């Protein structure tokens, strides 16, 4: 068990009244500086957590706009890779960390503005304005 993982004792967990939850960062538009191997690994970890597309520039100069859904980390960058889906490309794609030169969080963060508090506020405003059949609708995908 790594120290990074183990934060609570069983007794502390059992006594929790409220869950502390996870702090989500605002990453949309971010272009991380990739000066070191550690920077790249950290940025790709954030890209894996990100609920939007990112743009990867490879060392060969190719730009890939994709949703990163998985990463596998190894001892070296060459042994580590991301898996992603690219729009209009069927099937899973894979790219080694060693081939990545630049990363940009270019796509819309699909989780942003989806908090409970946002809904409560919108609901009350729409209700006060006399609106009926109030609802949130999924984003159009076609």
């Amino acid at each position, binding site marked *: *068990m*790594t120290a990074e*993982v*183990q*934060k*609570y*004792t*069983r007794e502390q*967990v*059992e*006594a*929790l*009244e*409220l*869950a*502390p*939850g*996870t702090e*989500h960062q605002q990453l949309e538009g971010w272009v991380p500086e990739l000066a070191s191997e550690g920077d790249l690994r950290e940025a790709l970890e954030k890209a*894996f*957590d990100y*609920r*939007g*597309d990112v743009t990867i520039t490879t060392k060969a100069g190719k730009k890939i706009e994709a*949703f990163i*859904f*998985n*990463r*596998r980390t190894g001892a070296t960058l060459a042994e580590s890779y991301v*898996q992603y*889906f*690219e*729009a*209009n490309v069927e099937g*899973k794609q894979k790219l080694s960390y060693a081939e990545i030169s630049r990363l940009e969080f270019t*796509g*819309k963060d*699909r*989780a*942003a503005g*989806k*908090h*409970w*508090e*946002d*809904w*409560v506020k919108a*609901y*009350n405003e729409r*209700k006060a304005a006399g609106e*009926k*059949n109030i*609802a*949130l*609708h*999924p*984003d*159009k*995908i*076609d």
Partner: protein
Amino acid sequence: MAVPISQMWTVATYVLKKRFTGANRYPLVLMLEPLFRCNLACAGCGKVQYPPHVLKRMLTPEECFAAVEECGAPMVSIPGGEPLLHPQIVEIVNGLIARKKYIYLCTNALELKRRLHEFTPSKYLTFSVHLDGERDHHDFSVCREGGWDLAVEGIKAAVARGFRVTTNATFFDGTDPHSVRAFFDEVMDMGVEGIVLSPGYSYEKAPDQHRFLGRARVRRLFRAILSNRKPNWKFNMSPLFLEFLMGDRKYDCTPWGSPAYNIFGWQRPCYLLQDGYAETFQELLETTKWEEYGVGSGNPKCANCMVSCGYEPTAVMDGFGSMRGLWAMIRGTFSRYNDPHALKLLNEFPKRESHSTLVQIESTEREMATR
């Protein structure tokens, strides 16, 4: 008894066979997510927040069948997204019935009444309809006024046509146990086979991290809700899992008990946490660092999880794993859990006259203030 004998027999013999063959880790329910697209936009849902090109992707029926056969679990839950939006969902369901899998098709039921004629009633097929409480509460929870009415129309139509139907509710901080108990009366009157419930959990991918109960509060809430049961209430769940929610049992998580498969692959470590994906079920079992997850690990990501996908497999394995467990399950199935202390606890919760949305605002503010 809400779960049919044939289903219990299938699960019991499966568990015993696994135990006799010395299997340490084995699945009970495959969480098969054929798509993430949904026709609701529930605030705080962490399951559907993807770019459009990802939401358009779906598992094919062949991919679903391959995952089911690879995993081997006797039960398959089909959540999503909304499975009824999958154009080949009927083919998927029929293929699983042909494989004699007990299926829980988890739906918000907005499309259920319209699509019902495409399905055939079977002991293997249950529509598990998402209903989070009484009308106002549910509509506010799923961010759609009128959602409850459509879902209930679907439930009634499905019951009338002879389908197995359960309701499926998630409860968050601020839940009024009096309202939940009234909701149980209401859904049992609709003729459903049983109720499924779970506490909410602040899994990392959920955009909303502020409405979730800690374990101590979960136990109090569920002790108030589930003690002193009405005779007509039936739960389509392990009675030992319900005792766990009420604080009568201490269990560890069995994340491999409900493995999840979707367009990304086999999700590790569980249905709600997304720490990566494996290509095969075997790879999932062999390469996931299981010791880093679950309540016993101290991992903050698992701190408040008491969700059925992790703990009900533990309860089922406990129940079918020994004579003592079996007896506890039989006793729990028929007990009404009469408890004067729990009644007092229930009465300490403020009884709300209406299910005003303002209740939710107060809840959110109160919770954040105590953080």
